């Protein structure tokens, strides 16, 4: 298909804006970048064909203001808007406003975003599609009495989750009735304050679970899966290190999990790229659907590395009307890939942020190395947004080779001027349990509390070699 009559506005910043602009360029589609006052001298602004300054540095006055983005689209004659991740990417209202303005939203319909964005509703939808869910309440719980009754079936420990929450926010844990009585009221008022809705639901807390997610892609008619990503290494429920495929799934569990996910996507008539997140229990080899993200994810490149499919290009092509020509049988796992998130944070000092002048940056080279970043020499990293600076994506013929290449790649990487999480990744890659794939979602936080000294040493070594 030719897309020459189209123009794509990228409603995001940082590395994902760069990623989307490049995907559009490869499809021959002109691009518009929007930027805040703080991002005028940024890589997306330099790479895009046109740039519109949409407002002040604060995200709630710029990147989160749908009307400013629509105004920029109108001014530049953009025909489609890609929301990236974060910001407005999962706002059903924004997706609706884009369509009402006569433009194309690169992503699923507002209806699907709304349906799957509501955690309780997503759960019901998954159950209807035959996908296992974590034992929990049927829909929302409105009173403490109802909560205590439901807890008998759900079992302790359990999580009280805000229906409108996400990214680990709006969750409280209770180990017995008396804790539930205390936490339930707090959860309701917190949910109300944070998300505008006090709706909560209950879910069994599976200790020592893995976070495994399945990438899906659909064109509204047909939906396929692109296998799974293992994202168990998290800190404060934020992913730090991801890989594909998961090092633990047996071929039969993998097939079952991924086909389940594809079935759910098919049932939704899903249009675009999406991710179904699951908890996986090593001991029972059971998986449970937890939530769906109706957007591209930060860690999408590991899937691209092992399948050879350009997810961002496909998102754009599907949105512009091209049918998905890939079939399930075309998708095969080739080797193994890992992604390390390089953040402007100091792991030796409680991950304290480190914005400011980046003096210089030097990336690794070689077989299987991909860098997604918006950095350049003398770039001033603004303090107003998240701390992600770059993603190192390393592909190998197998997991061991990916790790070996990753160790070399980290040694070759030099970032001067700001403190980053590079030393953390160096230390993690040397950990026997991580090399062996033995971890769960609580592993990294435990490791961090046990290895504080090691991180301080890594920081010192790092300072000597790179500053």
């Amino acid at each position: 298909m030719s897309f020459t009559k189209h123009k794509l506005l990228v409603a995001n910043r940082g590395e994902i804006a760069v990623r989307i602009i490049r995907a559009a360029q490869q499809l021959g589609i002109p691009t518009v970048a929007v930027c805040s006052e703080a991002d005028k001298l940024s890589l997306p602004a330099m790479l895009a064909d046109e740039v519109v300054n949409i407002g002040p540095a604060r995200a709630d006055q710029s990147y989160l203001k749908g009307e400013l983005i629509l105004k920029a689209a109108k001014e530049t004659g953009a025909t489609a808007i890609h929301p990236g991740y974060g910001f407005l990417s999962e706002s059903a209202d924004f997706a609706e406003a884009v369509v009402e303005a006569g433009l194309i939203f690169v992503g699923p319909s507002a209806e699907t975003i709304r349906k799957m964005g509501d955690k309780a509703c997503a759960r019901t939808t998954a159950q209807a599609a035959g996908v296992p869910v974590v034992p929990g309440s049927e829909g929302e719980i409105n009173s403490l009495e109802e909560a205590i009754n439901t807890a008998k079936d759900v079992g302790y420990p359990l999580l009280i989750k805000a229906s409108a929450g996400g990214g680990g926010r709006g969750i409280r844990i209770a180990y017995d009735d008396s804790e539930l009585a205390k936490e339930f009221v707090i959860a309701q008022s917190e949910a109300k304050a944070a998300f505008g809705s006090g709706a909560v639901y209950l879910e069994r807390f599976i200790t020592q679970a893995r976070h495994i997610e399945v990438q899906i892609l659909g064109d509204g008619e047909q939906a396929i899966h692109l296998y799974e990503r293992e994202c168990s290494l998290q800190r404060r429920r934020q992913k730090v290190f991801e890989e594909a495929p998961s090092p633990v799934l047996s071929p039969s569990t993998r097939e079952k999990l991924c086909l389940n996910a594809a079935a759910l996507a098919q049932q939704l008539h899903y249009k675009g790229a999406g991710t179904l997140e699951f908890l996986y229990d090593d001991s029972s080899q059971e998986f449970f659907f937890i939530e769906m993200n109706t957007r591209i994810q930060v860690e999408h490149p590991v899937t691209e590395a092992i399948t050879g499919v350009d997810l961002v290009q496909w998102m754009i092509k599907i949105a512009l009307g091209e049918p998905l020509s890939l079939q399930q049988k075309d998708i095969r796992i080739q080797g193994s890939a890992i992604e390390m998130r390089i953040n402007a944070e100091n792991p030796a000092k409680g991950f304290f942020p480190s914005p400011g002048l980046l003096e210089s940056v030097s990336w690794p080279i070689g077989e299987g190395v991909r860098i997604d970043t918006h950095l350049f020499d003398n770039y001033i990293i603004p303090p107003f947004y998240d701390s992600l600076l770059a993603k190192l994506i390393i592909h190998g013929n197998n997991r061991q080779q990916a790790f070996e290449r990753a160790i070399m790649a980290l040694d070759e990487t030099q970032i001067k001027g700001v403190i980053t999480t590079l030393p953390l990744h160096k230390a993690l890659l040397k950990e026997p349990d991580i090399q062996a794939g033995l971890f769960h979602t609580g592993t990294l936080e435990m490791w961090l509390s046990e290895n504080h000294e090691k991180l301080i040493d890594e920081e010192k070594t790092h300072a000597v070699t790179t500053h």
Partner: protein
Amino acid sequence: MASIEIISPLPGIFYRRPSPESDAFANEGDQVDNNSVIGLIEVMKQFSDLTADTKGKLIRFCVEDSEPVEPGQVIALIDVEE
């Protein structure tokens, strides 16, 4: 009386209240001491308390609520007894 400047140690956004609906941590005219939190600074989505670090009377805020600040910028003035 002498005035002490409370300086932002970080770049980011300065907030005078813990959440938009809450009361301000401190108001002009309040008595503060070393541990009094007078605001928050948000840097890359992380929030740090800004404490008065001195005992006295907060006489003036020099930065509006929710405004960007630079490291070294004066956020508030405190009158201390000599």
